[in-house]
C-alpha cells in the first residue's frame, strides 16, 4: 500500500506547528495589536530618547523618541502589505504571460512574450523603482508601492511558469488528452491546475521575499516615502542617526530580527505545505 | 571449449528502504548457476522484471548498493588462465583489472549514453585513460580510425559531438567503444530495445561478426526470443529470479520442456500459422514477496500440489540441458 501523507500528520509535525504559531503570532502583533494603540507610534518624541530595552520599553526607544516595541508592528504591517500586494500583482502577470507563452499555438506570440520576459529579468528593477519611489514620494500609498513593485517583478516567475507549463504540455498524458479531442482549456483545468497549485504558493512566497528585499534596499537609500514606517525606513533612520556608532543597536536589530523571523516562519511553512501537497498529489495520480 | 565464467548458486537482490525506515528485499536473483564457455553466445531470456538485467550486472561485477550478493560465487578465468572470484573483488580492482579488458558491457538505451559534451574521439581516448593506458596519441587515433572503418562509420565522426550523429551511428559508436580492447567476454543488455527491426538486424550482425572473428564469448540479454534464435548457441530462460531451463538453442526451440518456455515460444509468430497467438495469463510475481514452492505455479497450467509447496530441483537431461520443474523429476 502506498504511503499516504495525512492532514493530521502534517498538523502534528513540529516543523509545521512551530512556524505556524510564530507566523500567526507575528500577524496578530503586526495587524491586530496596532488597532489597540491610542497614539501613532510613527510620531516623533512621544517617548524618551535612546533608552535601552527596559520593562517600560521592552525593545528600547530611538533617538527620535519613538518606542521600538510600538514601532516594529507598524513597520512589519506595512512591509508585509507592500510585499503581499506586490506578490499578488506580479504572480498574476507572470501566470498570464507565462501560460499564454507556453500554451499559445503561435510561434510569434511565444517569441515576443519570452523576449519581453527576458528583458524584464535582465532589466535592473530596483534602480527604476527607486527613481519612481523617490520622484513620486508625495503621491504614494503603501498598497500603491506594492502595485508598482509587482509591475516590475514578474520576470523570474513568468519564466518558471513558462518552463513548467511547456514541459507539462509536452508530457505524454497531456498529448493523449489532446489527441483524443479534449480542448486545451479543459486539459489545463483537469490536468494542470492540481499540479500547478504548489508552484502558485512557491511563487507568491518567493515574490514576497523579493519585494521585502526591494523595500528594505530602496529605503536604506532613502528612496521611499520616508514618513511611512516600514522595516526599511526604520533601518534608514537608524543609520541616518548613526545608531550603530552611538551603540543604539536595538533600533537596528529589532526590525531586522522581526523581519527575519517572519520570513523564516513563512518560508518553512511554505516548504511543509509544499511537501504535503506534493505527497498528496503523488497518491492521487498514482 | 573451456569454461571462462562459472556462476555458482548465486543469490542476491536489492535492499530498498521504504519511507526511510522499513527495509524491503527484492529477491531478483535466486540460486542461479550458469557457465559460460569460450567462443559461445549464451542468451538469457525472460519477461521484464524477471531479474535478467540484475544477473547481468552481477556477472559484470557492478555490485553497488542497493544491489547486494547474499551468497554464491562468480568465477572468471582470466587471460593468464587463473580463476578470480569477481564478487570478492572491490569495485576499484574490477575497474582496473576486469572491466573493458576482460569483460565489457553494451548497455540498454545505447543511443543516449554518450557524454553530450565530448567529441567521439575523446570518448575513445577517455576509455584509454580510465585504464591507465599511456599509448602514443597517433597510435590511438589510428586505432580509433580502424575501428570506425570496420564498423562502416564515416571518418568525420571522429571529430563530431554525439548530438551531431544519428541514433544508429551513436549505437555503433557505443558498440565500438565496448569492443575497444578486444574483450574476451561481452555482456549485451537488451542492446536493441527501442530500435526498429532494420537497425536491430544491423547491430546484431555487427556484434555477431565481431564475435566470430575474435572468438570471444557473448552473454546476450533480451526479452525477444527471435533475437535469441538469431544469435545464440545456448539460451537460459529466467522466470522471477530463477533460471528455469537451459538448453542448446535448436533443441530448446524444437522441444521446450518448462511450461514457461513453451508459453514463450508459442507466443512467437510462425510462417504460415494463422491461429491467434496465445498470451500467458497472469502477471510475474512480486519479487519482494515471491510465492512459495515453484515461483511459476500461480500461472502454470500444469500446476500440482507439490509445486505449491516445494522448490523444484534442477533435472539434468543430457549435456547442456536442464530444467527446474516437477513434471520432469519423475516424482510428480
Amino acid at each position, binding site marked *: 500500500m502506498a504511503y499516504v501523507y495525512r492532514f493530521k500528520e502534517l498538523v502534528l509535525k513540529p516543523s509545521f506547528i512551530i512556524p505556524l504559531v510564530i507566523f500567526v503570532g507575528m500577524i496578530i502583533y503586526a495587524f491586530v495589536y496596532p488597532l489597540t494603540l491610542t497614539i501613532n507610534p510613527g510620531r516623533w518624541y512621544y517617548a524618551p530618547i535612546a533608552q535601552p530595552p527596559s520593562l517600560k520599553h521592552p525593545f528600547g526607544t530611538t533617538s527620535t523618541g519613538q518606542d521600538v516595541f510600538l514601532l516594529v508592528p507598524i513597520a512589519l504591517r506595512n512591509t508585509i502589505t507592500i510585499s503581499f500586494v506586490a506578490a499578488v500583482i506580479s504572480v498574476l502577470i507572470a501566470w498570464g504571460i507565462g501560460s499564454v507563452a507556453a500554451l499559445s499555438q503561435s510561434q510569434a506570440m511565444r517569441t515576443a512574450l519570452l523576449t519581453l520576459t527576458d528583458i524584464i529579468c*535582465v532589466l535592473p528593477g530596483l534602480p527604476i523603482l527607486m527613481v519612481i519611489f523617490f520622484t513620486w514620494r508625495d503621491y504614494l500609498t503603501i498598497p500603491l508601492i506594492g502595485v508598482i513593485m509587482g509591475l516590475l517583478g514578474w520576470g523570474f516567475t513568468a519564466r518558471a511558469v513558462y518552463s513548467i507549463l511547456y514541459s507539462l504540455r509536452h508530457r505524454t498524458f497531456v498529448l493523449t488528452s489532446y489527441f483524443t479531442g479534449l480542448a486545451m482549456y479543459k486539459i489545463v483545468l483537469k490536468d494542470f491546475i492540481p499540479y500547478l497549485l504548489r508552484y502558485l504558493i512557491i511563487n507568491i512566497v518567493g515574490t514576497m521575499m523579493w519585494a521585502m528585499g526591494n523595500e*528594505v534596499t530602496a529605503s536604506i*537609500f*532613502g528612496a521611499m516615502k520616508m514618513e511611512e514606517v516600514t522595516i526599511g525606513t526604520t533601518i534608514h533612520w537608524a543609520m541616518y542617526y548613526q545608531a550603530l556608532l552611538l551603540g543604539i543597536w536595538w533600533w537596528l536589530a529589532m526590525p531586522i530580527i522581526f523581519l527575519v523571523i517572519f520570513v523564516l516562519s513563512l518560508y518553512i511553512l511554505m516548504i511543509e505545505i509544499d511537501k504535503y501537497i506534493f505527497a498528496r498529489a503523488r497518491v492521487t495520480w498514482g | 571449449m573451456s569454461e571462462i565464467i562459472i556462476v555458482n548458486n548465486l543469490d542476491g537482490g536489492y535492499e530498498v528502504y521504504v519511507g526511510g525506515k522499513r527495509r524491503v528485499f527484492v529477491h531478483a536473483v535466486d540460486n542461479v548457476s550458469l557457465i559460460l564457455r569460450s567462443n559461445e553466445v549464451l542468451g538469457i531470456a525472460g519477461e521484464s522484471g524477471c531479474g535478467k538485467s540484475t544477473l547481468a550486472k552481477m556477472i559484470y561485477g557492478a555490485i553497488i548498493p542497493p544491489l547486494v550478493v547474499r551468497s554464491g560465487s562468480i568465477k572468471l578465468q582470466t587471460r593468464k588462465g587463473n580463476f578470480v572470484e569477481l564478487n570478492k573483488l572491490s569495485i576499484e580492482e574490477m575497474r582496473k583489472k576486469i572491466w573493458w579488458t576482460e569483460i565489457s558491457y553494451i548497455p540498454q538505451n545505447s543511443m*543516449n549514453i554518450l557524454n*553530450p*559534451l565530448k567529441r567521439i574521439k575523446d570518448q575513445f581516448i577517455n576509455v584509454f585513460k580510465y585504464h591507465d593506458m599511456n599509448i602514443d596519441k597517433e597510435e590511438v587515433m589510428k586505432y580509433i580510425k580502424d575501428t570506425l572503418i570496420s564498423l562502416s562509420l564515416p571518418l568525420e565522426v571522429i571529430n563530431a559531438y554525439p548530438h551531431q550523429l544519428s541514433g544508429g551511428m551513436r549505437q555503433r559508436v557505443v558498440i565500438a567503444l565496448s569492443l575497444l580492447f578486444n574483450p574476451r567476454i561481452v555482456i549485451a543488455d537488451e542492446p536493441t530495445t527501442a530500435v526498429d527491426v532494420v537497425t536491430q538486424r544491423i547491430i546484431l550482425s555487427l556484434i555477431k561478426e565481431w564475435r566470430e572473428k575474435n572468438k570471444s564469448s557473448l552473454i546476450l540479454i533480451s526479452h525477444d526470443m527471435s533475437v535469441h534464435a538469431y544469435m545464440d548457441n545456448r539460451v537460459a530462460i529466467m522466470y522471477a529470479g530463477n533460471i528455469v531451463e537451459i538448453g542448446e538453442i535448436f533443441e530448446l526451440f524444437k522441444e521446450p520442456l518448462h511450461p514457461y518456455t513453451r508459453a514463450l515460444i508459442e507466443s512467437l509468430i510462425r510462417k504460415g500459422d494463422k491461429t491467434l497467438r496465445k498470451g500467458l495469463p497472469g502477471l510475474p510475481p512480486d519479487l519482494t514477496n515471491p510465492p512459495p514452492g515453484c515461483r511459476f505455479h500461480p500461472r502454470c497450467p500444469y500446476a500440482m500440489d507439490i509445486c505449491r509447496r516445494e522448490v523444484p530441483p534442477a533435472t539434468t537431461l543430457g549435456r547442456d540441458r536442464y530444467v527446474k520443474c516437477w513434471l520432469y523429476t519423475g516424482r510428480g
Partner: protein
Amino acid sequence: MHPLIKYVLQRVALALLVVWVGITITFILSRLMPFNAAELFISRMLAQGHSLTGEEIENMKKQILELYGLDKPIIVQYAIFLRNYMITGEMGPSFAFFPSNVKDIIGKALPWSITLLLLASVISWLVGNGLGVVAALTKHRKISSVLENIAIAFQPIPFAVLALSFLIFYLLVLKLPIPGAAFVSITSPFEMFIYMLRRASFPLLVLVLFGWFGGFVGMKAIALKMREEDFIVYAFLQGASTRSIRFMIFRNSILPQFTTLVLGISRVFVGSLLVEYIFNYPGIGYILQSAIANADYNLMLGILFFATVATAVAALILDLVYPLIDPRIRYPGQG
C-alpha cells in the same frame, strides 16, 4: 546561417533591446515627473547661492532647456533624448557633484561597478554550484546536511538584511574596522585593476558570502539527477575513476545552471548597489545614494540608464561565453 552566428546576433539584439527599453523607461519617467526638472534644477542652483553671474545663469538655462527640448513635440523630445543618451552621451550637469557632468561622474563609477558585478555574480555562482555538487556527491552526509540547512535558512532572507546584519556583527561583535585601501598613485591600467580588486575585496566577500544559496540549491538538485543519467552510469561501467565521474557530473550539470547566472545578474546588481553604498565603494551605488540625498534627478536618470547598460552588458558577456562551454550551440545537430 550558421547557428552560432544566429545565436550571437540574437543575444546582441536582446542586449540592445534591454538598453532601448531602459532608455525609454528613463525618458517616460523624466517626462512624467510631477515638476519641471529643468526649472527645478535652476531654481535650486540659485537657492544654493552659487556665485553665478546673470549671463552664466541664462547660458545654463538655455543649455538645460535645449537638453530637455521641452518646447518641442514629444516625439522630437524622445529623439533628442535618444541622441543625447546613446550617441553624444550628453546628460546635463549634476546637482550633487556640480559642476561635473552626469556623463563624467557615471563614466568614472561604471568600471568599478561592472567589475564588482561580474566578479560577484561569477564567484558566488561558482561557489554555490561547487558546493552543490559536493553536497550531492559527498559520502559524508553531515557536510551535505549542514550546507543544505545553511542554504535553506539564509536563502529566503533579503540580501539587504543579511548585509546589514553582517555589518552589525562585524562592527559590534568582532569590533573590526572595515578594510579600505589607502589611495596610491596609479600609473598603469594594471595597477588600477589591482587597486580596484583590493577595494572590491570586502564588498565582494559580503556579496559572495550571502550570494551562493540559490546556485547551491539548484545545483544540488540537478547533480543528484545527473548522477542517475545513463551516460554517467555508462562511464562508471567503462571503468571511469570516481574523480572523472565527479568532474563529468559537474561539467554537465553546470550547463542548465548557466541561465540562472545570466538572469540573476540584475538581482546581484541590486545587492552590489547596496554593498557599494554601505562600504563606500566608488561605484554606481555610491553615487546613487548621493543623487538621492541631494534630489539630483539628472544624475538619477543617468544612473538609471547606465544601470540598464551595466546589467545588459554583463548579461551579454556571459551569454557570449556560453557557447564556449556547450558544444551544442557551436555545432548544428541533427535534432
